[in-house]
């Protein structure tokens, strides 16, 4: 954590508007991206981003939680919010593929689409949704946010060995589900 960030957080503890605004402007896009990868809906991700920052402000008085890594703490709160969101929904949201592809961006046209095309993309999306929340969390942090294993371990409060095992199981399960989806 930089000295400047620490100073901002100390001011944010006193609910300083400018400091909170600066922290929000810096971190909100990252948190939004993370949340979108978990909930697949731009509007929901935007709402949850606001929730995450309100939760941050609710708990910011307790320095213990952000002193080591504010970024890590943010992702942890975001993950908890995602779990709450799905609990509120009482089901894992399955966004229809067409809506997913055509709402905010058309993956097939933006050059980032997998070469196997929409069918493969749909299979992958469906398979990812069937993973456990922890497995999804690991995959998003590792392959979406590009974090190292030890960073993911700190956020998830697990050992690096546990994260490696979780990652292995997640990829193996995902692979198996993709293959089953392709066969079907």
């Amino acid at each position, binding site marked *: 954590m930089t000295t400047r960030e620490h100073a901002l957080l100390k001011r*944010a503890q006193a*609910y300083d*508007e400018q400091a*909170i*605004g600066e922290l*929000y*402007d810096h971190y*909100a*896009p990252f948190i*939004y*991206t993370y949340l*979108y*990868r978990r909930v697949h809906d731009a509007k929901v991700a*935007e*709402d949850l981003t*606001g*929730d995450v*920052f*309100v*939760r*941050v*402000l*609710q*708990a910011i008085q*307790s320095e*213990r939680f952000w002193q080591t890594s504010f970024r890590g703490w943010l992702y*942890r*709160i975001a*993950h*908890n919010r995602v779990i*709450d969101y799905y*609990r*509120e929904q*009482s089901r894992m949201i399955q966004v229809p593929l067409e809506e997913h592809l055509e709402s905010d*961006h058309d993956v097939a046209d*933006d050059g*980032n*689409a*997998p070469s196997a095309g929409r069918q493969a*993309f749909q299979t*992958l*999306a469906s398979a*990812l949704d069937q993973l456990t929340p*922890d497995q999804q969390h690991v*995959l*998003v942090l590792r*392959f*979406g946010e590009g974090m190292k*294993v030890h960073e993911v371990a700190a956020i*998830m*409060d*697990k050992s690096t060995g546990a994260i*490696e*095992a979780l*990652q*292995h199981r997640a*990829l193996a399960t*995902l*692979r198996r589900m*993709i293959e089953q989806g392709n066969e079907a």
Partner: protein
Amino acid sequence: MKAHTTESLLTESLEKLQKTRNVTVVLAHYPDKAETLHPLLETAQQAGVYYAAVPRPPEGLHEGRQRALAFAATQRAAVPARRAVWGNVKFPNNLFWKFAGAIAVIAFILIPLRGPLVSAARTTLPGNPLYSLKLSSEDQLFASMDDAEAQVVLAISLADERVEEIRALVEKQQAIPVDVLYRTDYMFRTALMSAAWAPEAVMSNMLAYIIHHIRQQVQQLELLKVQATPRNLPMLNDIQTLCMKTQIIAMVALENPETFREAYRAGTPERMPLPSGGPLSGVVITEELRNLITSTPDSSLLTPATVPAAPILTPTPKPTATPASGIDF
């Protein structure tokens, strides 16, 4: 020399893949494990491509920014002084005076028990060797009182103590042991049973007291979830569900006092066997029900209209379910 498990080899090869972006090049480093690693690396690549497809965030994520700043403004405007625990509880006037006497009785009984060891034990957390002494002194308190109203107040205040312990454990990032859940469950059951033995004229007030007080606990647990480590979240959810289930029972009891009295005077209901997937899952806390529980004004607690309708709840699997209320006492 570090032993390479498949998991650690996968991590190592994924780091290489991030640099080279070429599965074939990476696999050349692990000829013996290529067959195992190949599908996993390919899948990781696919996941990376999938996650890269994220729409641009709405301009400035303006709404969330406004909400965060509005929340900060309310906090700046709020009185910063931390209020006492009991100061947070706004009793309806009639209930406050109804139970003030019971609280005074408990305080009177607590005074002679304040030996140095018991005093030390009172602040301990689960896992501390003195913790069992703390629980024993609580049990002694129960044994020493035969007044139903005092027992309800004591049981609920000890459930409060469990929430305080949970708060301390969460702040220290220590795991919440399952015993805390069981003990809280025991307190709630005791409170309900004591209410069932109370004179008819005061039973409603005691149930309302239970409902009111547990709502505070649910809100406190909700706030704690913000700070909780992932390891503690399932337990927090279970304890919160337990609180809500107790609230529901008390709310339904207000509507069906006879059924409630009969069920709870019959003896100690069975103890909850598991923290997750056990009888707790018999009642599903829907969002609608959660809102009802947390937003019902105290003034309306005694009116039957606030009792949740049976269809909100999923059928409880126990054979002793009461058809009239749709909930198993």
